[in-house]
């Protein structure tokens, strides 16, 4: 018996095989389909996707054979990986390299072998797609071509595997980046916002008139934190990392909570909020309470921001079939038509930020859209120049 020579690039070859992270994994349909096809086309009882490891050959797919591995020294495939061409042994009994090979003289009695090397980039051959018979025979040119074509499909599967691995790695890297950015931005903001909060507290103790410079610094550092939070929130959502903590939510309670949370802001905007009680008392939806509250809060604060002094923000609820529609309206001059298409886009704010009552981050509606769509809901608005503006979102009712 003559063993297959070690390829000149054996170290590189083993490294490439390890990178695939395929050895000792479970069987997969994609590979089994290819060995089935090879076996059918070449009319052989056995077909294998064989990978040549340091001391063994291991089978990712093994059509017609129970074994998952054999010693490398016995492997026909170890010869096959020394060339780019098909390696064919028509009668193993008559070949000095194999006539006394245990795989020939005993189970599985390999008498015929045809192996197409699996060639990765940089001409690295990690194994073969091969067909085996228990009696001497030949395969025709069409069968040879098919075997090579199927081998290329096996390599395509390997490439997909590597791409998936790279994507998972990228996903993990993005998570780490988000976490790092979150931490690195928030750490100096902690000192900044904290020290300004203390100064404000100290001045309030002794002087009812707050230094306007301090007020500016505090307000803008709070704004900076809002922007950081919104950017991180949106990054998470766009990366598909929004995880909803689903519970049954009483919508009316939540709307009341949202109004209360924004009380101070509404007063600062010199308007008032009215919640119109619906006919049905128990309106329950399945959702993430914190996130739905975030949407309500955002719509209410937007309504307050764009409401004229003395204006009214109206919250109402309607039901239709199995959906509930929550609306937040504000009086005003409506949204100009050319600005309406900017709504829900990132970092787009209506009007000039310099004449807004209290500037936002420009991300709120984009975040709301992600949240509502994650709930399989719908969000939209109605606004005509010179009329009230209404933002609404719809969710599926539980009851």
């Amino acid at each position, binding site marked *: 018996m003559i063993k297959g020579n070690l390829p000149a690039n054996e170290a590189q070859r083993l490294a490439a095989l390890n990178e695939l992270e395929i050895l000792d994994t479970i069987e997969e349909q994609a590979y089994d389909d290819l060995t089935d096809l090879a076996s059918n086309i070449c009319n052989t009882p056995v077909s294998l996707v064989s990978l040549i490891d340091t001391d063994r050959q291991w089978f990712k797919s093994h059509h017609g054979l129970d074994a998952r591995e054999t010693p490398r020294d016995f492997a026909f495939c170890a010869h096959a990986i020394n060339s780019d061409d098909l390696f064919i042994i028509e009668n193993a009994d008559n070949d000095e390299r194999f006539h006394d090979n245990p795989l020939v003289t005993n189970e599985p009695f390999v008498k015929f072998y045809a192996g197409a090397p699996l060639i990765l980039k940089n001409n690295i051959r990690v194994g073969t797609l091969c067909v085996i018979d228990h009696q001497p025979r030949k395969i025709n040119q069409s069968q040879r071509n098919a075997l090579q074509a199927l081998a290329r499909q096996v390599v395509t599967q390997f490439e997909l595997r590597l791409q998936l691995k790279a994507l998972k790695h990228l996903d993990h890297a993005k998570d780490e980046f988000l976490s790092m950015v*979150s*931490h690195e931005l928030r750490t100096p903001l902690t000192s900044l916002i904290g020290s300004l*909060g*203390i100064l404000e507290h100290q001045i309030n103790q002794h002087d009812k008139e707050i230094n306007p410079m301090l007020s500016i610094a505090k307000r803008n550092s709070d704004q900076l934190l809002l922007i950081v939070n919104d950017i*991180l929130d949106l990054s998470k959502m766009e990366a598909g990392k929004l995880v909803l903590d689903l519970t049954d939510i009483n919508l009316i309670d939540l709307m009341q909570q949202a109004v209360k949370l924004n009380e101070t802001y509404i007063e600062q905007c010199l308007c008032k909020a009215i919640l119109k009680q619906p006919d049905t008392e128990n309106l329950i939806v399945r959702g993430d309470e914190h996130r739905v509250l975030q949407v309500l809060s955002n719509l209410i604060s937007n309504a307050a921001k764009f409401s004229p002094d003395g204006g009214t923000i109206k919250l109402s609820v309607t039901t239709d079939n199995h959906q509930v529609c929550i609306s937040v309206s504000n009086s005003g001059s409506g949204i100009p038509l050319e600005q309406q298409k900017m709504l829900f886009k990132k970092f787009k704010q209506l009007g000039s930020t310099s004449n807004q009552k209290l500037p936002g981050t420009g991300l709120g509606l984009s975040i709301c859209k992600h949240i509502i769509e994650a709930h399989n809901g719908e969000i939209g608005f109605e606004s005509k120049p010179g009329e009230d503006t209404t933002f609404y979102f719809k969710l599926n009712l539980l009851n």
Partner: protein
Amino acid sequence: MSDLNKILYVEDQKDIQLVAQYALESIARFELKTCNNGKEALEVIHEFAPDLILLDVMMPVMDGPTTLKNIRKQDRFSNIPIIFMTAKVLPNEVSELLDLGATGVITKPFDPVSLGEQVRDIYNKTR
């Protein structure tokens, strides 16, 4: 009368230490001892005998999670309330910290005026 009087505060960032010190001593009226990392905290914990520990997460020498583990190993402090203070705010990060055995998590930036109240709220829930 509350039995929450003494807080051991562990934080490596000097600026944040000063802000929290003012918030917890001058505003909330706790007796505070500050340490720069977990190793220092372990050296002073027996003598100071705190009622509660505020623990930063990312610190040199000994980080928050390791410090918590070492504190809980000691019988005297196996049930002491420990609150992590962290700038890591992704939901899975917060729940990972709670899974380590923390009593609560306060995210940074915090409001210095209400920090004492937040700490008391978490402490009272353990009673």
